[in-house]
Structures are given as C-alpha cells and as structure tokens.
C-alpha cells in the first residue's frame, strides 16, 4: 500500500469517527429534548392541577360561606337572589376550571388521562350543582341549600379530597419519573458520548501511531543507510521490503550505493596501480641517480686514474734517478768519510752536511715515490684478495694502530675510545688489506680532528672516539664517530674527491678518503656516508655486505 493511500485511509477513518461523534451528539440532544419535553408536560400538568385545586377550593369556600356572608349583609334577613352579572362571573369561574381540566386532559397520558376524564365528569356535575345552588340562592333558599348539602358538597369533597390529591400524586410521580428519566438519559448519553469519544481517541491514536511509526521507521532506516553510505560504507544496503514510496527510495539508495561502490573499487584499483607505478618510478629514479653518481665518480676517477698513471709514470723515472743517486751519494759520502779518516775536521763537517742533505734528498725522494705508488694503486683500482675476516677484530686493530701512530707523532695526544662491537655479525667476506686502509684513514682523520680541537679548546674539551658495529642481517654496519668540529655541508660533498683535503699543505695528500670510497663502494659493493653536526660531531657510516654482491 502506498503512503498516499495509507494517509488517505487514515484520514477517512478519522473523518468517520468524527461523523460518529457528531451523530452521537445529535442523538443525545434528541433524547434529552424528548425527556425535557416529557418533564415540561409533567411540570405543566402539576402546575395546572395546583391551579385547579386552588380554584375549586376558592369556589367551594365561596359557596360554603355565601349564605352566611349574605345573611350577615342582609342584617339577618333572607338575602336577595344573585344578580345576573354576579351569576355570570360565578359561572365563568366554574367554566374556567372546566377549561383548565380540558387542558389537563390534553397534557395527561395513558392511565392518567382516564383519571382526568373521570375527574372532569365529576367536576362537571359539581359545576352544575354549584350553578344550581347559586341560581337558587336567595330565590329558593331551601332548594339552594339542599342542592349544596346533598350534591355539591359530596361532589366537592370527592373532587378536593380524592380526585385532585390523586392527580397531584400522579403528576408528582410523573414529574419525578420524568426528572429521573431526564437524568438517566443525560447520564446515558454522557456515557455513550464519552465512550465513543474515548474509543475514537484510542482508534485515532492507534492509527496515527501506526502511520507515524511506519514512516519514522522507514525514514530512520533511510537515514541510517544514508549516514553509513556518507561515512564511506558503500556495502551498506537498506533492507526495506515495503512496496511504496519508501521502498522505491530505499531501492534508489541501494542502487546508488552499488554504483558508488563499483566506482570506488575502480578508483581504488586505478589508484593502487598508479601508486605502484609511482613507487616503481621512484625506485628507478633513485637507482638512476645512484648509478649516475657512480658513473660520474667512476668517470672522474677513471680520468683521474689515467692522468695519475701518466703523471706517475713520467715522475717515477726522474724520482728513481733522484733516489738512486741520492743513495749512491750517501754511500759515496760514507766511503769518503772513511777514506779521509780523521784528516781534517773541516772537511768532515762539510761531509756531514752533504750527507745530511743527501739523506734528506733520499727521504723526500722515497716520500715522493710512496706518493706515486699510491697514485698508481689508485689508478689501478683494486688490490689484494678476498678473505673471510672477523670485522670487529680488524676494526679494533686498526683503530688502535691509528691511535698509536698519533701518539708517536705527539706524545701529549690522548683520546677516549668507546667501543661497542656487535658479536652477532659473524665472519664476512672482504679484502682485509684494503679494508684496513679504510679504517686507518677514517680513524686518522677522526684523531686529527679531535686533536686540533683539543689544541684550540684546551682542557675544557675531552676528545672522544666512538666505534660501533651492528649486525643488519645480510650486511654489517660500522660507525666511527668523533666529537671534533664536524664537517660542514658544503665540504661533505667533496671529501670523497681525490686530492681534496682540509689539512695544511704537507700534512695530507687528499687521497685517503677517495681511496676509502673506492674500496668500500667499488670493491665491496657497500656504502659510505657521513652524518655531522658542525661544531659537535662527525660520523662515518660504512655498510658492508656480508658476502652477497661480491663478484
């Protein structure tokens, strides 16, 4: 059933109840009017009987006292007869009572009417007797008195003491009955009206409750469904089996939810695909960037290596001559010192100076040779053989070696070394000779940094080197951290370039970290990076694959 038809039927039902209430009201009104009319007739009859009683009494008193009064008026003599006018008035009074009795007869009903008719007949005889009395009074006084005593008085006694009291009782009973009936009807109609009104109210309330409950339930389900769909639950369906407007609306909602769900699934799929593609592109881009960086570095190193090889080759030969001839010169000066003996002290001093100069030439020649050797090794790009090593032991050994090297150069140098080695790393595959150079270079730079800061800051600064390893599963991580001045961002970009150094001239070649980078990244397929906060610390982080990735 549609909502429109449901509401129309409800309205018609309530209209029918309203009509029923109206009909009950009019019916009650008619019943009350009927009882009021009955009561009015009874009261009118009662009033009329009282009036008749009064009039008959008056007439009776009049005829009873007439002879005495008239005699007194006549001074004890026989009164004269009544004049016609007085007789006419007297007869009129009797006839007026007759009219009242006729009126009473019309008001009477049923058995009461029979009584009234009997009363009317008796009164008619009484009236005739009174008229006869009055017409003979003063004319034939004996006849008048005889008529009065023999007929009128018994009749008046019957009328006044039998008929009228009985009629009064009857009418009083009739009034009481009509009054009781009036109240009875009033109570009955009131009860029926209240009952019908109560039933109508209950029915109307039930209809209104039923319709409103049906509508609110349907609307609530629609609201819940709409809220669920609005909150993103597109699988929500509105279970409303009604075949009406609400049912149509629910079906529309369900269809909308289904369409939205399908559209969202398509969008989600497309989004996932796009996201996957984006991630893939991002990975590819990162890989490309790394590859590009490596290519650039390799290209630089390759060109640098070639250049270095050329330079080294060109310089090595003269250096060999300088070194060789300096050694020969030292030997020759030694021989000459032996030959000269103790001949001349002055020559001896000169020879000592020559020997010292030749030694310096040799020393610096060897140093230059060492540099050239390093350049050649750098240009060749690899050295040594792979072995299974204990990373923690190798690291600890070369950190200590670097520390003692620093102590050898400056006995006042001191540093706190904090070590934290992860024993779970286990053996890894590496080239220990090259890897030791990496650890040595990084540790040397760290010691140098804290030493320089100590020289500036004095006792207020406590140099510290922190060395830690960590097992990352398929790789191992080494962290070497010093609390020196740190490395500014602009310098951090260049520290792995060859010949770049921040040390004063003569104290650094600028090749240590460049070689370290090659050893870690190219030889071991690892990573080396720097974290630093200028003024506080610098930390080198080296990640080495345990075995996989080696060629």
């Amino acid at each position, binding site marked *: 059933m549609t909502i429109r038809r449901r509401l129309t039927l409800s309205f018609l039902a309530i209209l029918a109840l309203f009509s029923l209430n109206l009909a009950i009201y009019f019916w009650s009104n008619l019943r009350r009017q009927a009882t009021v009319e009955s009561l009015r007739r009874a009261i009118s009859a009662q009033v009329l009987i009282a009036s008749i009683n009064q009039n008959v009494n008056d007439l009776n008193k009049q005829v009873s006292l007439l002879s005495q009064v008239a*005699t007194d008026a006549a001074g004890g003599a*026989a009164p004269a007869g009544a004049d016609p006018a007085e007789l006419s008035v007297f007869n009129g009074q009797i006839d007026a009572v007759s009219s009242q009795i006729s009126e009473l007869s019309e008001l009477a009903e049923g058995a009461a009417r029979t009584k009234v008719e009997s009363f009317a007949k008796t009164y008619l005889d009484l009236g005739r007797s009174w008229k006869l009395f009055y017409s003979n009074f003063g004319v034939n006084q004996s006849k008048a*008195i005889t008529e009065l*005593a023999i007929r009128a008085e018994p009749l008046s006694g019957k009328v*006044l003491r039998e008929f009228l009291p009985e009629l009064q009782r009857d009418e009083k009973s009739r009034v009481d009955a009509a009054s009781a009936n009036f109240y009875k009807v009033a109570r009955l109609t009131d009860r029926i009206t209240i009952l019908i009104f109560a039933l109508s109210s209950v029915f109307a309330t039930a209809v209104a409750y039923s319709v409103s409950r049906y509508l609110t339930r349907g609307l609530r389900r629609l609201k819940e469904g709409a809220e669920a769909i609005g909150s993103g639950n597109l699988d929500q369906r509105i279970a409303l089996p009604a075949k009406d407007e609400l049912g149509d609306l629910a079906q529309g909602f369900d269809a909308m939810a289904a369409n939205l769900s399908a559209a969202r699934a398509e969008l989600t799929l497309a989004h996932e695909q796009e996201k996957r593609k984006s991630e893939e592109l991002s990975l590819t881009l990162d890989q490309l960037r790394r590859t590009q960086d490596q290519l650039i570095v390799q290209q630089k190193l390759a060109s640098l290596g070639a250049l270095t090889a050329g330079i080294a080759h060109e310089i090595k030969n003269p250096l060999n001559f300088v070194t060789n001839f300096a050694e020969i010169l030292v030997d020759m000066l030694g021989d000459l010192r032996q030959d000269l003996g103790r001949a001349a002290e002055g020559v001896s001093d000169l020879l000592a100076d020559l020997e010292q100069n030749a030694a310096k030439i040799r020393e610096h020649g060897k140093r230059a040779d060492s540099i050239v050797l390093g350049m050649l090794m750098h240009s060749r790009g690899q050295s040594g053989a792979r072995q299974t090593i204990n990373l923690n032991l190798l690291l600890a050994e070369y950190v200590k070696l670097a520390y003692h090297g620093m102590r050898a150069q400056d006995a006042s140098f001191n540093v706190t070394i904090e070590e934290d080695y992860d024993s779970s790393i286990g053996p890894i595959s590496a080239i220990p000779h090259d890897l030791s150079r990496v650890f040595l270079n990084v540790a040397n730079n760290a010691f140098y940094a804290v030493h320089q800061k100590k020289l500036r800051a004095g006792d207020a600064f406590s140099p510290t080197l922190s060395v830690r390893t960590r097992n990352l599963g398929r790789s191992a991580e080494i962290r070497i951290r010093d609390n020196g001045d740190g490395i500014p961002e602009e310098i951090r970009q260049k520290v792995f370039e060859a010949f770049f150094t921040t040390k004063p001239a003569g104290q650094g070649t600028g090749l240590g970290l460049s070689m370290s980078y090659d050893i870690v990244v190219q030889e071991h397929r690892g990573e080396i990076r720097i974290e630093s906060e200028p003024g506080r610390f610098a930390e080198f982080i080296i990640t080495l694959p345990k075995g996989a990735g080696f060629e």
Partner: protein
Amino acid sequence: MGRLTLFLFFAVAALTSAVASAGDVAIVVRADLPADNLSFSEVRKLFTGDRQFWSSNLRVTLLIRAPAARERDMVLKTIYQMTEAQFRQYWISKVFRQEAASGPKIVYSNEMTAELVFAIPGAVAFVDASQVPKGLKVLKIDGRLPGEKGYPLH
C-alpha cells in the same frame, strides 16, 4: 293542600311543645338518623365542625337560624360560647383552613328548618322545644330531653 297540611302540622306541634317545654331549645334530626342521645361534648363537636360525619357515609349538615333568632342566641351562648362576630370569624377561619368542608347553613324559619332536615340526610338543627315539627327526632343531651331537669339548652 300540601301547604295547608304542613301548616296544620306545625301549628299542632307548636302547641304541643309549648305546653311540654317552654323556653328550651331542642336538637332535631331526621327520624332515621342512627343517633338518639349525645353527650354535651359530642354536641359541641358536632356544632363546632370537629365531627363531620354521623357514620362513614352520612355527612353532618349543620342548620342554624339566622341572627336575631332566639334559638341562635341560645346555641351561641351555651354551645359555641361565642359572640356573633366570634362565631362568623370561627367558621370563616375553619373553612379557609379547610378544617371543615363547609360552614353551617343559615335557615330563616322553623318551617325552613323542618323542610331542610327532612330533605337533607344527616342534617341537624335547633328549634324551639315547643315548636318541634312532627316527624323529626329530638336528640337527648346527656340522656335528657328538653323540659327535663338538667337539660343544658335551657
């Protein structure tokens, strides 16, 4: 003829009564009335209207002479013990209070009294004891007839 007979009847009766009880007032009723002797108080009740029936079906009809008659004066004095004015007032009040269906009927002569007593069953009247019409019954009062010693209406 009827009137002559009636006249003769009353004349004879008057003469007889005058001889028998001069000055007394007799209470007369019809001969068929079921009463012969009344006490004085019963007489008072009758004439004051307190007793209105001789029997259940026989109504008492009082007949009393018009003012100035000797019988009336006697009755007012001995039975009613009232003046004329009091007597009138008494009956008017009684009728208006409906204590009596009717008042006494006024008669103007002994003839009229006799005629009405004969005609009305239950009628009771006063007449001069010396003029009691024939055919009417004279009631005893306290066992005494008019003319006897101790008769109250003397």
